[in-house]
């Protein structure tokens, strides 16, 4: 017995590995560069995108038979923008502290190409339950990479993880800093996100040669 059929499992799990939206489809790079300087921001962004993509996919899927194809992109944009703004307003009213951390991401979520990409490629042609799984899977695959990149950038760039000084205090020269280690400030800048991402793609493809495109 399985709660999910084989196809449904694939929808949920493939985007985590062999069909990852960032490393394989190379979508959502812009936000992956922008917010991965800290692990906390990466985690918050990952959770927000899981929520928005799953809900948005379901809404679009339910509307798929009535959306006029000529303006479908605009309809998708309106759905995701309305969704994000409503959630932002509710958080503002009932979880003010949290909303202050999240408000930075609102604009980034709306413009995230993974969201529009999944609406267009999947939700418009499939039922709500499958769309939901596809949304959760893709957003989780996106979030997974975000967290890995955020982990390395914060660790090597600031010497902290989630704000805790795990490598010692750089000003008082304790821990690793006592033996001459220095933070690499370059890790905090966007280009290094791209390089970290490149390394992840390289590692993934060298472990699974089926992912390498034929020339």
């Amino acid at each position, binding site marked *: 017995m399985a709660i999910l059929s084989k196809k449904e499992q694939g929808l949920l799990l493939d985007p985590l590995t062999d069909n990852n939206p960032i490393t394989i489809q190379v979508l959502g790079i812009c936000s992956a560069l922008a917010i991965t300087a800290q692990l906390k921001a990466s985690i918050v962004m990952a959770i927000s995108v899981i929520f928005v993509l799953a809900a948005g996919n379901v809404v679009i899927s339910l509307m798929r038979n009535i*959306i006029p194809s000529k303006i479908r992109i605009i309809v998708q944009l309106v759905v995701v923008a309305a969704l994000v703004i409503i959630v932002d307003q509710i958080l503002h*009213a009932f979880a003010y502290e949290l909303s202050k951390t999240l408000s930075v991401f609102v604009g980034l979520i709306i413009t995230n190409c993974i969201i529009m990409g999944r609406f267009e490629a999947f939700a418009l042609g499939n039922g709500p339950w499958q769309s939901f799984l596809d949304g959760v899977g893709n957003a989780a695959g996106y979030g997974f990479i975000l967290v890995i990149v955020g982990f390395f*950038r914060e660790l090597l760039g600031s010497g902290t993880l989630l704000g805790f000084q795990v490598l010692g205090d750089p000003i008082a020269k304790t821990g690793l800093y006592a033996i001459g280690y220095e933070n690499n400030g370059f890790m905090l800048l966007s280009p290094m996100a791209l390089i970290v991402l490149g390394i992840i793609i390289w590692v993934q493809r060298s472990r699974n040669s089926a992912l390498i495109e034929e020339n």
Partner: protein
Amino acid sequence: MANTDKNSYTIIFAIAMVLIVGSLLAFVSSSLKPTIQVNEKFEKQQNILYAMGVNENVEGDGAAIFVATDKVEAEFSKYIKKQLVIQNGEIKSDTAAYLIDLKSELNKDKNERRLPLFVGEKENKDYYIIPLYGKGLWDAIWGFVAVDENFVVQGVYFDHKGETPGLGANIKQRYFMDDFTGEEIMQGTKYAGITVAKGNNDPLNERKGDNKVDALAGATITGNGVTAMINSTVKLYVPYLKEIKI
């Protein structure tokens, strides 16, 4: 199923969608507005109190912690003994001064501008708390700076709308804000402000008299924004601070 490719269907769908989504958003926004305003009011009170050192920071821990929201109103009336509004050279008392939106006041004509100023008292010491508003790299930055009667900074609070996490967003971290404490905003009798300086080479901020604090690496424009914000806003208050303290 209707033909979804027809022009008339497309137009009707678009109009209906705009009406439905528009009214939904308007409804959500207007029904949540009162709750959001209360939250914003508390936050402003928390920020003002934070600048004068009324907060729940733990020694040795790097996090900036406000007084709790359920206590903030009581604490605010306990510590803030005067709320003033400066308009056209006159200083008046106004108990709603903390609700003034500094951004719109700064855009107004000089004569119509209402500048809020708060006088706090803690342990028999007076604090003059000045609101700040300026521009960072991406969006607005704002804050409060508390000075004593000798124009020595007693504490600051900064916040931002959308600075880069890990870089400019760190202006609201304690290790940056704490550096301002003890700095002077005057040099002799002249107003000098405080500069967020690169190459200051004083990471522990041991030189207090130099009107400079160490910049954040990778956040030059946000840092310059903080400098400009302090210099332009505090400057407006300096003549009145001299008047009030006498």
